[in-house]
């Protein structure tokens, strides 16, 4: 019972009920209209037939006066047919004709009867069958009344037929509606049940569960698909969160332990110089921790999209030129050459600070990881328009990243350098990826020099969409 109440409450069923009601009203109106029209048509035909009779009687009266008129009436009354003839006295008593009795009052008014009336024929006086008729009534100069009319048997039968047809049609329609209603309703119910089953599992904690998609592409499927996309995003965020907390725990424990040890050393020693060195170590460890937290905060803010409002047209060429200017001496210091090739006047819709920080991160990484590339340690900074977007790439000739690990390095705290011998938070590429996502672009990692097995190098490309409009949330 509950389920059917629920079914009634479902939008699809309520809508179909409403449609059926409206459709039935329309159908009934149509049928009544058609009936009325055909009745009028038939009545008109009958009146025309009556009028012909009247004309003939009139001609007889014109030719032979009252005698010929009465004779014509008598003769016509004896012929079989649907026509009615009455000659009545001034008081309304029937003197001659083929009708035994008529509804009282019919003979009183001259002209066309306004409504069909009932009458009885002679032949069937025993069985009191009454018929419907329309008639024209005349009052002659001598007070005699003439009635010429016609039986309405045909239109009556027709009306009956139409009524019957209407009833059958409505019955079939109603039956069909109920069948369809149950069909839709049951289907909807089943799918809703499946969806709520799936959502119960999801609520129970199984975020990998997805809502069923039938494949018909209807509104249920579309809803399921968008809910599934949402679930996917939630799962990804959740996974990221879990991973981050794992990594935070893992990655922060080491510096915190070092911090603690250094503090203990500083406490133990009496030597001022040793204490100073220990305290300096503590400061630099703390700074590193603060940096890590800042980077984490930054990424989560970028990912939350709260900076999306701060988007404006920015000169990407100028930012890249700034980066080259800023890092050229740094690369030089590391024994590398930073070259740049920048197409001028490339503008994107974006956040200058974030894009700047992303590029700085990439160049920083490139310098950090190609310092072991003896000989050809070029770092190439390129900005150009491509068919698929605006491409900003930083290419190094370091040891590169194997294709199967490229996905991993974008994750927070993941560093391929297991020994953590290079300084860094392991958050650089995560931030770059978050920034690119915010700008509706993507991040591509590829080999700089795939031929070279040893030093294949890494090229990181930030691809901004051509009509770079920020992702709106």
């Amino acid at each position, binding site marked *: 019972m509950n389920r059917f109440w629920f079914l009634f409450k479902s939008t699809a069923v309520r809508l179909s009920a409403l449609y059926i009601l409206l459709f039935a009203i329309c159908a009934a109106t149509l049928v009544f209209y058609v009936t009325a029209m055909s009745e009028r048509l038939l009545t008109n035909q009958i009146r025309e037939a009556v009028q012909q009779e009247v004309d003939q009687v009139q001609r007889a009266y014109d030719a032979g006066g009252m005698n010929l008129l009465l004779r014509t009436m008598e003769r016509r009354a004896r012929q079989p047919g649907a026509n009615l003839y009455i000659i009545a006295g001034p008081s309304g008593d029937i003197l001659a004709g083929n009708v035994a009795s008529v509804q009282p009052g019919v003979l009183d008014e001259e002209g066309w009867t306004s409504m069909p009336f009932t009458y009885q024929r002679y032949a069937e006086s025993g069985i009191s069958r009454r018929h419907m008729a329309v008639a024209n009534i005349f009052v002659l100069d001598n007070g005699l009344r003439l009635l010429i009319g016609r039986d309405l048997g045909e239109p009556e039968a027709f009306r009956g037929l139409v009524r019957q047809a209407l009833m059958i049609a409505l019955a079939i329609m109603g039956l069909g509606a109920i069948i369809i209603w149950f069909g839709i309703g049951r289907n909807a119910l089943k799918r809703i049940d499946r969806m709520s089953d799936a959502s119960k599992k999801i609520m129970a904690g199984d975020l990998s569960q997805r809502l069923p998609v039938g494949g018909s592409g209807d509104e249920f499927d579309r809803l399921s698909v968008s809910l599934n996309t949402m679930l996917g995003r939630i799962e990804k965020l959740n996974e990221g969160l879990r991973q981050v907390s794992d990594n935070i725990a893992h990655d922060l424990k080491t510096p915190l332990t070092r911090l603690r040890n250094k*503090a203990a050393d500083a406490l133990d020693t009496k030597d001022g110089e040793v204490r100073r060195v220990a*305290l*300096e170590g*503590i*400061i*630099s460890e*703390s*700074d590193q921790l*603060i*940096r890590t*937290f*800042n980077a984490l*905060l*930054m990424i989560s*803010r970028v990912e939350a999209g*709260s*900076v999306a*409002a*701060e988007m404006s047209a920015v000169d990407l060429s100028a930012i890249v030129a*700034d980066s080259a*200017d*800023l*890092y050229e*001496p*740094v690369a030089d*210091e590391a024994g590398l050459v930073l070259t740049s090739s920048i197409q001028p006047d490339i503008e994107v819709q974006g*956040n*200058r*600070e*974030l894009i*700047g*920080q992303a590029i*700085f991160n990439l160049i*920083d990484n490139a310098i950090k990881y190609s310092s072991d590339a003896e000989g050809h340690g070029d770092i190439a900074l390129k900005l150009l328009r491509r068919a698929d977007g605006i491409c900003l790439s930083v290419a190094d000739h370091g040891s590169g990243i194997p294709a199967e690990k490229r996905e991993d390095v974008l994750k927070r705290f993941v560093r391929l350098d297991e020994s953590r011998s290079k*300084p860094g938070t392991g958050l650089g590429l995560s931030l770059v990826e978050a920034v690119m996502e915010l700008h509706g672009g993507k991040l591509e990692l590829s080999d700089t020099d795939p031929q070279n097995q040893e030093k294949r190098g890494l090229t990181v490309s930030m691809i901004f969409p051509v009509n770079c409009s920020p992702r709106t949330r």
Partner: protein
Amino acid sequence: MTSSQQEEALSLAETQPAGNVDRMKILIIEDDLEAAVYLTKAFREVGIVADHASDGESGLFMGSENSYDVIVIDRMLPRRDGLSVISELRRKGIHTPVLILSALGQVDDRVTGLRAGGDDYLPKPYAFSELLARVEVLGRRKGTPDQDVVYRVGDLELDRLAHEVRRGGKEIPLQPREFRLLEYLMKNAGQVVTRTMLLENVWDYHFDPQTNVIDVHVSRLRSKIEKDFAQPLLKTIRGAGYMIKDEG
């Protein structure tokens, strides 16, 4: 805040000879009592008199006395929002330099903060050395509007109009970026300038550079202005940043 940062502040204080300048007086408007107590103490240790207000209304009242060199204000305060305190002070014609502290630390916050009349902006968490350097730069700004065409530190001269740098009468050719770097350092001669402040004022990017990128630029500049000269001018302040100063 950790004691290590206090130590850092102490080591900084050693680089600021007392009595050289009048004691700076600042107002800290901060509702986090622990942070406020730490800041007040840390500033006092480096010879800066710090008063404290714990909400927006009393901060506005105290700030209206116009007797402070710098106001350090938290953005989110009880009873009156930090930005509204700044606007109200500015409306009253009080132009004490204001440094905004914010946990929000976003670019848009910086822009709204500076638009409301703030003079500098520092996202939390920050190192005390960073805050101190910025407060000192702001405090000095109040007295000396930088109208000077030529900055001088010892025998080093920087002509802002002619874009020329000379030391001991000998011209030192500098790249435009190096010139701006030196210009900013000399404008704040005798003050500690942090790496973040340099990235902000010379390159106009507002985040912690994180790496040695600024150091490389400074050391290049240093080699240009100190090569062939006995007297060092550009000093590295450990744990804080740089300072240009004539020791002689």
